[in-house]
């Protein structure tokens, strides 16, 4: 009995203790829980960097800048121009699968739900955002040197101008976006093309002042003042400002130290050609260009595109470009031709070719046309002959303005075929689209500009109305 009582007492004592201890644990536990609210703070993921930190260091800032060119190269509006606008104009025949975006381009039956139209629009404005983001952040950066700031700002302004220029060329009136503020950008309105070019030129003028003739990279993959000038020359030409066009084109032509004329057609698209003003490097060493991959074929009938036979036939027989830049492949009966400007279809040990975006020949042709328009026939002829000489063609003598303009146009067609849609934009600016492309069954006058992506109209009614004809 005694044993029993002590056990009970012991139990009671323990129970009391227990209560106290339980309470203690509970309190400890709760305070612990409540006190560690910073438990839910996490460090950054390994693949991301704080945006402001990017612009404290020139290498990461350069990585941000380079992303724009990389995106531009990999399936953007600009990189697609050679292929899609070649189809849209009279340069390429399409043999790929029916019912594709490209077939619609080739047949001029593009509608506002076309996927390419939408993706061009979206990537272009995404890159414009990136450019604006760089402009805004570089402005606030205290760590970057003034020269680095100027280089980055100059490039960003150039990119913004360049993309808007093509947007206007392709879609007509579009918004000019200069901020990263999304609530503003979500409601932007279209501005007329003339007005938009003024904005483009304004940006380019500032960029011109910020950039020098020196390239950041010796391989000319990032824009310098020469690139800015080359684009300005083109825009002046497109907007009939002949004097200014000739002057701007002279910049690169006159800087012969940097841009040395080269008459070998076969080396023109090699990565170290001295007439290249701006080119894009491929993603990896050993890769070559998207153009080479898209145009060159080894079997017939071709699986994708071939040159329009009429284009091939339009060359003078002794034109060296016919032999150097075009290749044919026959099945015994029919011969199909492809653009052979870029000669590498696949990879090589070391990359041989880069995509050339601006080259010196264009500057000569711009100045030639501007001079002729401005009454300087002799100057114009001499610039034109620079190109004709290289192609092994006879020199053009002094003749009347209209004939010369026609010759220049033809020269542009042969010099720039399947390059960045030059053919289409030329026909467009001289109002020859209906005359030349009218032979295509799907062609309508309103096809001179593409439709705005239908989703964009729905989401931002300020973009209304849709372009005529869509």
């Amino acid at each position, binding site marked *: 009995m005694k044993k029993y009582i002590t056990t009970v007492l012991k139990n009671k004592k323990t129970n009391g203790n227990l209560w106290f201890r339980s309470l203690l644990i509970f309190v400890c536990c709760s305070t612990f829980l409540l006190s560690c609210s910073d438990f839910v703070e996490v460090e950054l993921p390994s693949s991301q960097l704080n945006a402001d930190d990017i612009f404290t260091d020139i290498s990461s800032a350069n990585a941000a800048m380079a992303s724009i060119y990389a995106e531009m190269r990999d399936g953007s509006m600009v990189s697609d121009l050679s292929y899609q606008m070649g189809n849209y104009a009279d340069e390429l025949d399409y043999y790929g699968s029916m019912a594709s975006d490209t077939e619609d381009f080739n047949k001029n039956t593009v509608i506002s739900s076309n996927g390419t139209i939408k993706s061009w629009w979206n990537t272009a404005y995404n890159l414009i955002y990136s450019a604006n983001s760089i402009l805004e952040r570089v402005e606030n950066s205290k760590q970057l040197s003034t020269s680095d700031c100027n280089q980055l700002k100059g490039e960003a302004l150039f990119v913004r101008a360049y993309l808007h220029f093509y947007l206007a060329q392709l879609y007509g009136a579009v918004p000019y976006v200069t901020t990263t503020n999304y609530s503003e950008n979500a409601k932007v309105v279209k501005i007329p093309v003339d007005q938009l070019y003024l904005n483009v030129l304004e940006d380019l003028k500032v960029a011109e002042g910020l950039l020098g003739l020196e390239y950041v990279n010796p391989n000319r993959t990032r824009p310098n003042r020469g690139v800015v000038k080359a684009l300005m020359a083109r825009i002046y030409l497109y907007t009939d400002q002949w004097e200014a066009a000739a002057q701007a084109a002279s910049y690169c032509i006159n800087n012969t130290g940097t841009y040395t004329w080269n008459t070998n057609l076969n080396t023109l698209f090699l990565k170290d050609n001295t007439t290249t003003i701006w080119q894009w490097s491929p993603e990896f060493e050993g890769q070559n260009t998207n153009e080479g991959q898209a145009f060159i074929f080894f079997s017939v009938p071709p699986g994708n595109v071939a040159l329009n036979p009429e284009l091939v036939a339009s060359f003078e027989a002794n034109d060296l470009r016919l032999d150097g830049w075009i290749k044919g492949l026959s099945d015994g009966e029919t011969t199909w031709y492809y653009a052979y400007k870029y000669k590498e279809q696949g990879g090589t040990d070391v990359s041989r070719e880069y995509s050339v975006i601006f080259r010196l020949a264009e500057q000569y042709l711009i100045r030639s046309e501007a001079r002729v328009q401005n009454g300087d026939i002799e100057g114009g002829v001499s610039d034109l002959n620079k190109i004709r000489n290289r192609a092994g063609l006879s020199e053009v003598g002094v003749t009347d303005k209209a004939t010369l303009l026609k010759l220049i146009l033809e020269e542009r067609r042969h010099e720039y075929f399947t390059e960045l849609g030059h053919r289409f934009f030329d026909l467009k600016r001289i109002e020859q689209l209906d005359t030349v492309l009218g032979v295509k069954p*799907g062609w309508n006058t309103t096809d001179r500009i593409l439709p705005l992506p239908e989703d964009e109209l729905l*989401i931002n009614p300020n973009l209304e109305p849709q372009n005529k004809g869509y």
Partner: protein
Amino acid sequence: MQKRYIIRDKCILLFTLLIFSIGTYSLFGNVRGVNFFDLAAYQHRIKGVVTDSDGTPVQGASVRLKGTSTGTFTNNEGVFYLEATPTDVLILSYIGFKKLEVIVGSSEELSLVLEEDVTDLGAVTVNAGYYSVKERERTGSISSISAADIEEQPVTNVLATMQGRMPGVYITQDSGVPGSGFQIQIRGQNSLRSDGNMPLYIVDGVPFTTQSMESFYTGEAVPGIINPLNNIDPTSIASIEVLKDADATAIYGSRGANGVVLITTKKGVAGKTRFQIGYTYGLGRVANFMDLMDTNTYLEMRREAYANDGIITYPANAYDVNGTWDQNRYTDWQEVLIGGTSDIIDATGSVSGGSEHTQFLVNGNYHKETTVYPGDYAYNKFGLNSSINHSTRDEKFKVHLTAGYTIQNNNLPGLSFMTDIYQLAPNAPALYQEDGTLNWENSSWENPYSVFETSYESKTNSLISNLLLSYEPIDGLEFKTSLGYTNNQFFDQMLRPSTVYDPAYEITSEFSNAYKNQVHFNSWIVEPQVSYKKEFSAFKTQLLVGGTFQKQVSSQLVHSTSGYASNSLLGNMTAASFINIATDDQTKYKYNAIFGRLNTSLFNRYFINITGRRDGSSRFGPGRQFANFGAIGIAWLFSEESWLENLNFLSYGKLRASYGTTGNDQIGDYQYLDTYTISGNSYNGIAVMEPSRLFNPSFSWEENKKLEVAMETGFIKDRLFLTVAYFKNRSSNQLVGIPLPGTTGFSSIQANLNATIENKGWEFTLRSEQFKNEDFSWSTTFNLSVNRNRLVSFPGLETSTYSNSYVIGEPLNISKVYQYEGLDSQTGLYQFKDFNDDDLLTRENDREAIIRFDPDFFGGIQNSIRYKGLSVDFLFQFVKQDRYTGEHSMGMAGRMGNQLNLLQDRWKQPGDIATFQPYSSGANSELRSRYLNYSQSNAVLDDASFIRLKNIAISYQLPRNILHGVTCSIVLKGQNLLTFTDYEGLDPEANFTNSLPPLQALTTGIQLHF
């Protein structure tokens, strides 16, 4: 920085472990249930025989002396021996039987009969996650299915087992590709975010991530999201509970908005060691093909199309009609590409048993499934589950360890060819040349078999484990810690050798690509809890307080390689010239909470349940990380009221209601940060960085308010049981990627939108036992759910970017389309309503008709019939819904590509009454643009309601005496055997138009228990 976190995490772990496992036990370990009275002198040996009501011996039943830890089990004759005194009370228990208490008395031999416990709600408890609750005292809305329901289905995914069986839970299968996923919606769509509507999955107390693992580069082979729930083998599951209302889900706070799915795996049962072996083999196939045109009809269509367009010379690339291809050839591409049969093999085995204080279970399973494609592809799965329970003799300290490890291996063609089944012309060329190589017919087509040159492989290894420690120092007070760890490793790769291309293009192995994707999820969770229970005569109360610390780390590495010297080296990175790292990322998610529950009952009739949670999540920016959630649930067991006692036919009656708030944090990690991301691209030799997103640091939780009222009634001794529930849930503060125009640079921004979404509806469950006697029983369960989803308010919808996606008062899952007004019998053109009467049909102004995709109602009827050893279980699932018509995705009739036969009902000349426009090759822009409008009109919506024999299981248990103690059952199981529908497409259930439909399967198997 990182070090600091590691140290802190370790401290937390140590601390909690210390307190609850070692700490508590050593502190209070001296307090044990001591048997004070030494009554050994009076003890005598008794023998007992335990049988069920049929007189069959019950083996393995637990026999214990009340108030002591002395006990034993019955042997296989149902006999036990025990030392006891005449005043002792014996407690007999066995699963499936009512607990029996008898006083030993003076006799030395006892004959005891256990009563089967089938409908006794009082004994049935339901798992509610942090606590369990007696079915009759439940205040919340919980649906559940048991192992018995799961085992009769020949499926591999847990979600498949729930289809048609739970009211309010809508599940659809993404595709019939082995290893593909499911979509689940519990009581409708609550979030505007399409990926923000997943429920929270808890496996044995451990949250299980359903974050998708695939990569854009490798993931084409399996449509939809590869669901990590494949890691759980259905045969290892003991029960699945779905928590639906606020009362049940508020304790899960910010993660409870879309409901909670609790998966509990099987545990060992005390008694003789039991073995189970099972094997099933079966076949699966695509049950239904589309009614497509044959060559004659097809070519007639093509020729007519060109004639209609005024084109006399067929274009060079119109190979099907211009004479390039044999005009008499016919191939049924559906049959060729998806017409095979798939083998389904399952093998399971388990060992379980244990003593009164320690029980164990080991369960292994193997599953193999081949595809319906041509070629040798297979999905293999191997799983091992184990469970160990131990309690001290005084049952105060308990340990429960569960661990499950699964290995999956899936081989498939690397790319999808589902569109080929209808896009290929029926007279497309032969697959092979005479020499056995792929036929490219002079580069005039893309041979669909080239897809089989590509290959896809995925490997998943996953571990889910949980350790539960509990200590009950005094009656009613319990300390508990749940420690969970999951590890999920996913690897998949897609190989695209150059042989996939037409050899004429002379593409060499330099252009062969290999894509690899490695994903690793790792998470731990610690949940310390204290609960206290107290009874004061008529008043009972329970209190639970706990906390959660969770951390999840996920990493992904995606790379592509190309430039191989030979295709035989494809996939080996060292042999590649180019290696591109597309993604190399690691993300962390941390989660912290404190939760509690207070439950009180009065007179066993009135119940109040209050639950709450304070949550913190790393997915939100500073100052937005924490929020509170809570709910109250009440129940009134009115059948217990004395004034209803005379109502004999009413055996059970309960009215319950609940109201509360939950939240949703499914927005992905780091969305509030302004960062640049390494995109994986490079330029000029440097890895580039691009802006990650438009950022908004100030978004916060989505809030979801739930209301439910339900009545549960049982009649005629609960043989007829009816539950009617009404719910109304409202979600506000919608956290969405608000779509933005492209001019902003991005397509959306993360922000809270002041929109309210309502889901309200009714759920009915009727269970009846028509017959129930020794030899024959028949029971039926019927469930029906009617849910109405509605956008209640959305200030500024008209001017917002959502104005064309949503309409106030309408469900979220709609499309605004043109209103089809029929075919003009004079012109043969489709006509549409011009809503604003401007004589123009514009997307912006005339797409005012609304098509709705949510089901009107859905449910299932399940029957279980048993006659002696034979049992038949079958479930009919029914859904009333609309889907896009079969022809919707096929393109315009007349272009290259096959069509449904019904498209032949086209207009030919004025006066024709037809369904479809004339054929066109695409050159007629009027026909083409009208066709496009038609495909964006309400004409392409079809009734896709169906009634489907979802599964049937017939099993026969051989009489026990034949196999001497071995229970043997032979089972025949079927899935999707019959479908009644008017739908013209492949399958009315399939989520994606271009994916393999869920397969029809029939398997036979044998099960042995001994």
